[in-house]
């Protein structure tokens, strides 16, 4: 009994030591970079929407789709040439949160697992990162949809 107590104490002591000696991520700097890069991406998206609506007379929904398509395409291309991960390393959440993060999460496994073949490599592993987001995103939307349906009855 006493031995297990002393082991617990030692683990607690070691965890304290780890907390003291492990350098922390620079949260302030990370937030600042995420804010400006993420902001620029959003401005780009908004510009595309405005452009679609004014130049091509698209509806708001159509222009939104246009913005998504362009941003996803740009991200996929930048991922393909090996540049996107460098931008993301700098920007963190700034590139993850907009639709760019989703596009990168699809393209990077597609490239990574290509050597294992189109079926068991790219095909099977395509959703390794984006999969959980889809599963819980769609599940949540179903729940919200049901709630909305019953509330508005």
């Amino acid at each position, binding site marked *: 009994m006493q031995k297990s107590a002393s082991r617990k104490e030692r683990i607690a002591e070691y965890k304290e030591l780890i907390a003291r*000696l492990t350098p922390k991520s620079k949260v302030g700097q990370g937030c600042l970079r995420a804010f400006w890069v993420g902001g620029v991406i959003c401005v780009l998206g908004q510009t595309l929407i405005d452009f679609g609506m004014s130049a091509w007379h698209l509806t708001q929904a159509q222009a939104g789709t246009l913005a998504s398509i362009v941003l996803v395409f740009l991200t996929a291309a930048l991922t393909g040439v090996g540049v996107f991960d460098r931008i*993301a390393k700098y920007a963190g959440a700034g590139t993850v949160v907009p639709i760019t993060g989703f596009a990168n999460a699809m393209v990077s496994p597609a490239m990574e697992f290509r050597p294992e073949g189109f079926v068991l490599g790219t095909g099977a592993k395509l959703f390794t990162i984006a999969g959980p987001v889809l599963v819980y995103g769609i599940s949540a939307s179903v729940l919200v949809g049901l709630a909305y349906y019953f509330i508005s009855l």
Partner: protein
Amino acid sequence: MNAPNRMGNQTIVYRNTPWIAASACAAGPREAQGPLGDRFDLVADTPDFGQESYEQAEVALLREACRICLDKAHVGEKSVQAMLGGDLLNQIMPSSLAARSLRIPFLGMYGACSTMSEGLLVGGLLVDGGYAAPVLCTAGSHYATAERQYRFPLEYGNQRTPASQWTVTGAGVVLLAQQGDAVYGKPLAKLTRGCIGRVVDMGVNDANNMGAAMAPAAAATLCAYFDDTGETPERFDRIITGDLGYVGSELLLEWCGKMGHSLPRERMMDCGLTIYDPGQDSHAGGSGCGCSAVVLSSYILPKLQSGEWQRVLFMATGALLSPTTSQQGETIPGVAHAVVIEGVR
């Protein structure tokens, strides 16, 4: 009944002090830009080393390092009586595939990043006992293959934490021979003692802080060695850890101090802190089986051969991490095996 070649609980004495007859290493372009870059026997121009996959590149680096080592010792592949090697990938495939080309009788080793000292420890026993000689001990790793197995696709945009480490692309190889066997040329060094490490787990579950997971195992092995032999850290020119990195090295000093063995900072060295420049953005340092193996071959053994160092304790450290058990909430056990390597005068 006590085993006759044993000291205390964990320490082995090599009565016939096997010689390290030759050694070689091959590494990737990032490693070549580091401070040891001009000492490598072979440098791959690109991470894929002209192969179809990164896995094949890892195999090729290992195979070529073996061939260079055997060339240096003027030994044919057929004369080598055993190969002991391992790496980080599932089923230690790169080592097995390299052994397939070399056709040397093969024993697979797995000790995560502690593989180089594990191989030396066991290989030394084969030679010391007169069961096999010469014996080839190998360890290798590749950044890209380790990332895909343990972490994310290479092009996935994420940020690494400050305590994370960079897996070394490279392979290191050592040829052990019987003491006095001069057919391989002048020996680089000799093995005199070894210490088999216990698996130690202090509840670390952060896979981005491997140094913290491994440091208690390193401390346990060091303390066991000092207790078994009655030696002090001052008996060594260097106490060399494998890949504790910046965080783990600090933790080792503190934790050993708490366990009653204070380590002199000026005698400590970590291969993970030696292989890259701080400016190379490797965060807390290098890691991987290849890290300690490449530094052993390119930096440590030459210093023992030249006489600059007389006696070192080489202790590669491994985090016994599996993505599966990690996701199931299991903590990360560590292990560290030590061998005492001395210059031959």
